[in-house]
């Protein structure tokens, strides 16, 4: 990140960004970030809920290959379907991003549940974590590190999905923005926009994921 800041400063000092329309960049970056945040929220709730219910049920082993097939459906192939039903809207892009972000989260949680030590599962049963309480008091906390790693991977894929969908659907947002500025030859604007995305990714990483990962490593260490 220090290198990114140094490059940005060097560009700034040299006057490379003097012609940049910062309002347009901020608007595009924030719009894309909003879509990512919404898509992540939906994918997190859906992915974790489905994984916990399936992991809790006796059908986890049977359903695993089914989810694997669904996961391998290329999300971009679904984009025309979303556009057909929802048009060139925020919902289309968010739903498309959900279809990409959900899988790393779902599989991370399912795998964590499946690979949990048998003794830990037995202890939960013996000490009364049965029925739905098993989900709340055993499976959900057990899955916390997996939710974190699944989220980090999912969001990385989500940025690609949202920006890709914005380019294809040519709606507002960072994807549509870089498509416009690239074809207009506005390279400083495109670079400033990319730096803006990097800053957001860095800030989220340092303020959200890094502390959560540190907490998870401290509490879940063997």
């Amino acid at each position: 990140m220090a290198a990114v800041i140094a490059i940005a400063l060097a560009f700034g000092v040299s006057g490379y960004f003097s012609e940049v329309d910062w309002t347009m960049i901020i608007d595009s970056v924030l719009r894309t970030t909003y879509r990512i945040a919404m898509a992540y929220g939906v994918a997190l709730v859906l992915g974790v809920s489905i994984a916990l219910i399936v992991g809790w049920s006796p059908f986890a082993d049977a359903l695993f290959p089914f989810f694997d097939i669904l996961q391998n459906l290329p999300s971009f192939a679904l984009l025309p379907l979303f556009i057909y039903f929802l048009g060139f809207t925020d919902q289309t892009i968010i739903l498309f991003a959900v279809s990409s972000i959900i899988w790393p989260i779902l599989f991370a949680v399912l795998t964590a549940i499946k690979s949990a030590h048998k003794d830990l599962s037995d202890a939960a049963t013996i000490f009364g974590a049965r029925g739905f309480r098993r989900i709340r008091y055993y499976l959900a906390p057990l899955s916390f590190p997996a939710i974190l790693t699944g989220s980090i991977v999912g969001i990385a894929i989500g940025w690609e999905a949202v920006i890709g969908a914005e380019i294809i659907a040519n709606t507002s947002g960072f994807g549509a923005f870089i498509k416009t500025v690239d074809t207009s030859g506005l390279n400083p604007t495109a670079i400033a926009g990319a730096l803006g995305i990097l800053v957001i990714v860095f800030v989220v990483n340092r303020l959200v994921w890094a502390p959560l990962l540190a907490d998870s490593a401290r509490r879940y260490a063997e």
Partner: protein
Amino acid sequence: MHDSHHMALVLSRVSSRFDDQRAKEASVLEDISFSVPAGSFVSMIGPSGAGKSTLMRVILGLMPPSSGVIVRNFKRPAMVFQNYALFPWLTALDNVAFGLQMDGLDRQERRRIAREKLKEVGLDHLEKHYPSALSGGQRQRVGLARALAIAPDLLIMDEPFSNLDTITSEALKADLLKIWRSYGMTILMVNHLIPDAIELSDQVIVMGAHPGSIEKIIPIDLARPRDVRSVPFFKEVDRLTEDIRRTL
């Protein structure tokens, strides 16, 4: 065989098999029959592959037997695990309180009981520590406190000393005997050391392997408290060792 009314546990011809791709069906436990008198301390010893841990799971109802009858004259079983099986996301206090929370006790009451149990095992000063910050001996004590917290009438212990150093396991054994006497519960312990089994138990069940089966049930009639450096104790160890050597 004793009258089953005075038995905490009776197993009659219990077998357990699981599907194996090559052998089609592999037998883990074959025709297991024994009784555990209520309030007694019973040890099971046997080689690896004797299915001791599987048998504990069958007794606790965590897996069904393929055949046979199990009479469970206990209401609340608890278990202490070889690898502790503490919940890593909970502090020592919350681990001990886990069973009470599942029973629906309010936070204040379950914490009061959990603190009491932690004190009983000598770890009240470590209640805020996560399992990863505890030594093996401390983790096993938390595991024991977690089991005691739910006031079990049957305590199953699966090789609780095997991951501990000698000094730690000696101290834990002494505490365990004190706890057993004061609680009056039934203890069924999987063990792999003959002197430990004799020091602690009223009865030693010797298992054979492939498939797991009962080879011999040996009562230990030494008076308590047992002096592990006395001649009768050494003679008992010698007798049991010889018995097992002949049997297996």
